[in-house]
């Protein structure tokens, strides 16, 4: 699973954003064509947080936009190295973003 964080969008023009989006579209399409795309969704920047024994409810993650998880992708990879290599094509890096790679645990009985 790729957890994709932020990226610095400040000062981008409408056209820059369009160009950036087209790169994303192309990358997503390439994952689909290779047959390794499983799922992926953007996450809204609002939300609630429930924490602790008291189940305290607070508003939102309220992190800075560049620290926030903006979306996730699930892809098929043989091992973590391969997942790392695949992730390098992600356009989020052009915006100085971060991508966290976490294998989904297999529950072997």
């Amino acid at each position: 699973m790729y957890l994709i964080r932020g990226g610095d969008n400040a000062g981008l023009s409408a056209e820059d954003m369009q160009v950036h989006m087209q790169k994303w579209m192309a990358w997503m399409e390439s994952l689909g064509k290779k047959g390794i795309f499983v799922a992926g969704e953007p996450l809204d920047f609002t939300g609630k947080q429930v924490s602790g024994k008291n189940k305290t409810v607070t508003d939102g993650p309220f992190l800075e936009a560049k620290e926030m998880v903006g979306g996730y992708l699930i892809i098929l990879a043989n091992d973590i190295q391969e997942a790392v290599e695949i992730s390098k094509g992600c356009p989020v890096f052009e915006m100085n973003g971060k991508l966290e790679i976490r294998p989904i645990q297999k529950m072997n009985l």
Partner: protein
Amino acid sequence: MNGTTLPTPDSPDLNQTLDHLFRHEAGKMVAVLTRLFGFPNMQQAEDIVQDTILKALESWKYGKMPENPQAWLYYTAKNKVIDLIRRQQVRHKIEHELSFLLTSEYSLVPTINEIFTENEIRDSQLRMMFACCHPSFSKESQIALTLNTLCGLNVREIADAFLTSEETIRKRMYRTKEKLRSEKITLDYPGVEAMAERMEAVLKTLYLLFNEGYHSSHPEKLIREDLCAEAMRLTLLLTENRKTDLPYASALLALMCFQSSRFNARIDDQGLIILLKDQDRTQWNRQLIAKGNQYLNLAASGEMLHEYHIEAAIASIHANSVDYGDTDWKLILQLYNLLLEKVYNPVVALNRCLVIGETDGYASAIIELQKMEGMEENRLYNTSLGEMHLKNGEKIIARTYFEKALSRTLSAAERKLINAKISLCN
């Protein structure tokens, strides 16, 4: 949905608005929201639009585009506005005929929906166009403001287009926006009396914007093409509205169609300028020429003969001639004489002399050119004299003029052209 679309030089079939969806929709939304918030609060409108586009980027990039991207953008922007108004953050800033409709929940949402309908969006863009061309701004500021607010270009992109620094454009925009606040410029149509004068200003801005794209030496063809396309898109908008559909607006649009039909034929693969005489006419965009003819017909009404009529007529003769020899130079000369009678312009006068070369011979053209005063240092003047002497078989004299022109030329494409001419003088 977007009314008529004009074919573009490179992609006659493709609707360019799809290529630049974010940019064009940004321009539309800024116009709509500025109309709502008032010109002095344009920043607020720009912030909402920036947020909306950013949200689209974040939501769509995972591979799921909405079926109707435009509607998605408007829906998102509307919700942001309604939210702001409900939270009382902007209502105090809104001072016009709409403001009372925004105070009640009964009319708030319908009012916001209404300003985002196709007709109202066009109306807002036109109002914005007139406001950007307000007489208290310099021509340069008018162009920069138009590109910024109506075409969705940011400071860096405008600086790129004019080959100047971001700092220069930033300062210019800052001063313009200050003035906009201090002069309390509103987004209203000028009254009947002021209309003609403001229409002149709007068309002049679009004419200059087009020329900047068409004649500039900008190394990037795409940027130049964009400027031309934007100028044409906005001129088209003027011709589609009853209030602004004046014959000379159609004439200007016709002129732009004819000129852009040659966009690809007048520069070769190495960026070398190809003169009209040597252009491959099969490369001219027939669809644009047909559009040009259509708008020139529409322009032929009313009493007033505007410069744009004459310029379009000249361009139409070139566009509709089978080849260089077939061109009706006598008629073109008459049109040039007419144009110069209306307003004297040294470049037009220079072109007229070249036409005389075709009607009365190159020696006559040289005599006419030598009658012009104060042009000795001008590169176009020297190139023209060189060209006429070269055609007249006087290679040595021609060479001196070309060399003089070369020392006054900065653009790489023009330098190449002049160097090629010099090599013909040996």
